[in-house]
């Protein structure tokens, strides 16, 4: 630890994928990993699927000083999970965190799977100076090959049998995110309803969205979250964009989609990280968009020659 500049220098993030096959292999690597964290005096957290978690718990027992977390409850919404990991890191600071972090890859559709892959990539950005160590297990026997391939692109180091190796497929988060975004479609069905936003008073817009949300069958809480998110994006368009400002709303299967558009150019243009990095406080730039990402399931930005469009998905 350096004391020259008055503050301890934090080591960079260690973010490794661990591609394993079978329980024995899983334990052979994760057990020493957690033990090394305990020995180094780090805050040790194990987030894993239930079977893996209980196998590890049997080895260590209670009172080992490890925080055990069921992955099923922890990985529900990528932006919220990033927030929760960050809260964990901050709560333990200045102790660095040593985390076993096994995401959940079942139960998601293609779109959601992509967001979880992006999440793995974002870890590299959000925690780059946290001093944390994270080992992310990928079960090669049950996961689709694509998921395991992507892990090599989202983790700078990969562990299989021997010592960790640098992944030559690794892509830095901004470039990775841009690639995720490249395949988006911004089509809108012809029957999408349009609501023009004429002035700064968004009361009528909120009532309209609330009504459509309940009509779609959203529960009260997600409906209110959508209202808050739409209001924020629209307020931003009214303040910083150019008229006409308006919102399209339509249903796509279980999803309700709202897209707020204005005629302005968003400059400097948003990049693939915009709104993903948790701000330190509400007073920091980017608080609004980050909160919008928390409130709904998915946010897609398009800053094009024809205007700025923010699409919100919720179900």
């Amino acid at each position: 630890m350096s004391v020259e500049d008055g503050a301890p220098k934090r080591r960079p993030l260690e973010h490794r994928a661990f591609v394993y096959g079978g329980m024995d292999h899983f334990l052979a690597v994760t057990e020493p990993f957690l033990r090394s964290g305990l020995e180094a005096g780090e805050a040790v957290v194990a987030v894993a699927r239930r079977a893996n978690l209980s196998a590890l718990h049997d080895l260590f027992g209670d009172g080992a000083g490890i925080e055990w977390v069921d992955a099923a409850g922890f990985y529900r919404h990528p932006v919220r999970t990033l927030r929760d990991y960050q809260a964990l890191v901050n709560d333990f600071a200045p102790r660095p965190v040593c985390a076993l972090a096994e995401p959940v890859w079942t139960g998601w559709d293609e779109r959601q799977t992509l967001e979880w892959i992006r999440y793995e990539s974002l870890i590299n950005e959000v925690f780059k100076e946290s001093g944390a160590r994270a080992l992310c297990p990928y079960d090669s026997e049950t996961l689709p090959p694509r998921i395991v391939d992507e892990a090599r692109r989202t983790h700078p180091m990969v562990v299989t049998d021997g010592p960790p190796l640098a992944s030559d497929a690794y892509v830095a988060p901004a470039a990775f995110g841009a690639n995720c975004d490249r395949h988006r479609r911004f089509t809108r069905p012809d029957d999408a309803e349009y609501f023009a936003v004429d002035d700064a008073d968004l009361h009528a817009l909120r009532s309209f969205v609330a009504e459509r949300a309940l009509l779609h069958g959203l529960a009260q809480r997600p409906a209110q979250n959508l209202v808050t998110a739409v209001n924020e994006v629209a307020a931003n368009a009214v303040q910083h964009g150019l008229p006409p400002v308006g919102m399209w709303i339509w249903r796509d299967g279980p999803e309700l989609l709202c897209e707020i558009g204005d005629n302005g150019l968003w400059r400097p243009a948003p990049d693939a990280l915009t709104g993903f990095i948790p701000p330190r406080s509400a007073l920091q730039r980017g608080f609004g968009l980050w909160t919008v990402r928390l409130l709904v399931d998915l946010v897609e930005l398009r800053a094009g020659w024809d205007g700025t469009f923010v699409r919100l998905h919720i179900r």
Partner: protein
Amino acid sequence: MRWASENLHEAYAERIRTDLDGQAMETPWFAKRPVKDIRPGDHSWLAYSGPEERDSVIGPFVREGLDTNEKVVYVTDAPAELLPGLGARHRVDVEALGRTGQLRIISRRDACLDRRGGFAPGKMLETIGREVDAAFGQGFRAARFTTDYSRLISAPGRSDLAEMLGCEDGVGNAVSPSTMAMAICQIDRRACPPDELAALRDTHEVLVEVNPEFDDGILKISRTFEPNGLRVEGELDAARHQVFAEQLAQVCLARRRVHLDFTDLGFIDLGGLNLLAQQATVLPADEALVLDHLPPDVENVIEMVGWHRLPGLERGRERAFTETEGIA
């Protein structure tokens, strides 16, 4: 979803059921109104926390009467220039108004005390009846009556509660059917025990409160006095940030802890949360803005982003039922 635009109208004629002691008593019903909406027939109740709150209600009550050709009857032993709405800064010619009969300041001895200085309810009722009748003859369109019961009820050898209740019933019977008379009965909240205060309150049909500082039908902002702060009702969004920021800055000037009562806040946008955090940064160190009675939807957004991202904001009292409405 709770849309406060619907609630706002209720705020003017909100009917609150009160069951103070839980007995199967005759349940009183109240309407709650800002002082500007007090009208003939209202026998209303003001249990104030201190002079600031009292003056904020009684001042406008008195001035509005004087400004609109209504008679104002104030039963008090205090000198006129110390009364709410009549002090020097209001530029009221008390003597001239007294000559025309528009302003009647009547001592308690003349209005409601017997020869030995005891409270005489019957005399009070006679006084009210006489003054209202005279107002009609003098061509005033209405008569506003107010007095402060604090000393009657807390003084040594005070009148007993039953007598006070009887008097209040009498006043109610005189005022309620009237098309001319309206009354505000003032009392210092600390002047008697809570159960007596509640019993007195229950003889009134209207709870009077301070006029809102702002009200556009979507957002309503009112001062609160105990605790010191603002009550914010309805929806706070970008179109209303500026007026809210001004009111908030104003109430933060007094060097007292500021509470925001969010009981009936239906919506706050993220800019509104930002604004609260900004105001908190200019408070003295260790001071906080206290958010009382957070509705679940508002609390959900705050918890979504985390309280630590809103430095200087503090969770205050939990939401509660309104049993103590009008007395605490």
